[in-house]
């Protein structure tokens, strides 16, 4: 006996809406060993660039000088100590304590670090506006400035960045360096921030022993349940 025909359903917009046939890539070339912005991964980038320099190159679209590469590494490292009390790492540790797989822990760390970056950028909007301004007067966003950040960058990378005189802590210092190296858009800065924060967040959370109800401070902080208006 012949099988009955499967029911046919009329095509809708998903089938009829004009759409390209191919998936386009604009940065990463998969052919001939792979390349980023045209620079071969195996024979050019790998032997001559550190990973954080490749990252900066990827964000900027062109190769970076060794001095700028070093400065980027310094700024990333300034903000890499994302400790267990900070939400990106705390979240990842909770994912680990809750028994999540490594992919979940890493995903949680990345997601919260990126959210933290957006929060930091919003908090520093006055600084970013000033950095993007032209012409610029003296930055008036805060009075407490720490000249050591300028010295630290110069000593570690050789780059003397005038704007760093207005830094007051590692967050503002890192954002000023990112801007000085050409990372101007919020997505670029978010990416750099999140990448750096993953260093501490992953190191801390993956060192946690895993599912253990006794190891995590259940009441830090305590929640007080309320009812009624």
């Amino acid at each position, binding site marked *: 006996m012949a099988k009955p025909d499967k029911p046919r359903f009329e095509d809708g917009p998903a089938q009829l809406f004009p759409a390209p046939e191919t998936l386009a890539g604009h940065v990463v*070339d998969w052919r001939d060993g792979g390349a980023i912005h*045209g620079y*071969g991964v195996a024979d050019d980038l790998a032997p001559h*660039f550190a990973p954080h320099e490749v990252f900066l190159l990827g964000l900027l679209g062109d190769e970076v000088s060794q001095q700028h590469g070093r400065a980027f590494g310094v700024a990333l490292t300034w903000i890499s100590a994302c400790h267990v009390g900070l939400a990106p790492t705390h979240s990842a540790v909770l994912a680990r304590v809750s028994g999540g797989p490594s992919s979940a822990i890493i995903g949680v760390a990345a997601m919260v670090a990126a959210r933290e970056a957006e929060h930091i950028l919003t908090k520093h909007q006055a600084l970013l506006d000033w950095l993007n301004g032209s012409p610029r007067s003296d930055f008036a966003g805060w009075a407490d400035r720490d000249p050591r950040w300028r010295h630290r960058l110069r000593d570690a990378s050789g780059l003397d960045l005038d704007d760093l005189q207005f830094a007051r802590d590692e967050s503002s210092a890192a954002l000023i360096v990112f801007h000085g190296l050409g990372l101007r858009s919020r997505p670029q800065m978010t990416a750099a921030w999140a990448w750096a924060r993953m260093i501490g967040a992953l190191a801390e959370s993956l060192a946690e022993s895993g599912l253990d109800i006794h190891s995590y401070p259940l009441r830090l*902080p305590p929640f007080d349940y309320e009812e009624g208006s």
Partner: protein
Amino acid sequence: MTRPRLRTRVAKTGWGDHRFQGHAVYAELLGHTSTGQLLALTLGVKLTPNEGALIDEMFVSSLLADPHIWPLKLTRVAGAYGGSTMTGLTAGLLSAEGPITGAGPVTPMAELLDRLVQLDPDAALREVRALLDAGSRLPGFGVPARKVDERVVALSRCVIARGQHQRPHWLLWGRIADETRTRGVEPNIASAFTAAALDLGFPPERVEALFVLALLPCFLANAVEGAEQRAEILQEVPGVDLEYRGPARRESSRCRSC
């Protein structure tokens, strides 16, 4: 030093029974709460059975789960290695925060409706016309690739059938839709859903979460099937279907100098 304490209205674990949003889970909610009512209560809103049934219908009306739709396709791609439904589901839900697609338009629409509904109807409409005249795109309006959003048509039927169509936010939304239609712009489900939710008593800032819940079946169905399929074409699209449009091969100055 006194440690800060956080207040919560959500829940407290007990012995034998637990509290949830002001109610005993087993003694009060169990057996007396529909899924629609429970989802509303999740957001702190207590609904009657009839109102809970409208939530059910709002959710069913919102179903549009074709895996070609970008955020739903994302659940498939992100979950293509299998092993977990959560990877695809989480990725899809994160993408639903955009300003145009997913739940992004809901909060701005809720705030707009909540403000305009307090005005004289003619004044509210004048403000809408001024916004449109200025070239503003109202959140939750605009229907790509089709003449109307069938979800709006379906939801409208349900709202009318349950006698909710004379409520203030729905009436206002209808007037706005009449105005945008004269300019060739149809409302989509985000704005219609928002109006219906506001009339049910959801605070404007919580309607977005309700809409995400309504979209959850679309994401979850794709995340489950996608994780089961582990489609190789989504793990890696074949080269013949890819096109590179970036810079040509070049040599870095560091490479040249070595």
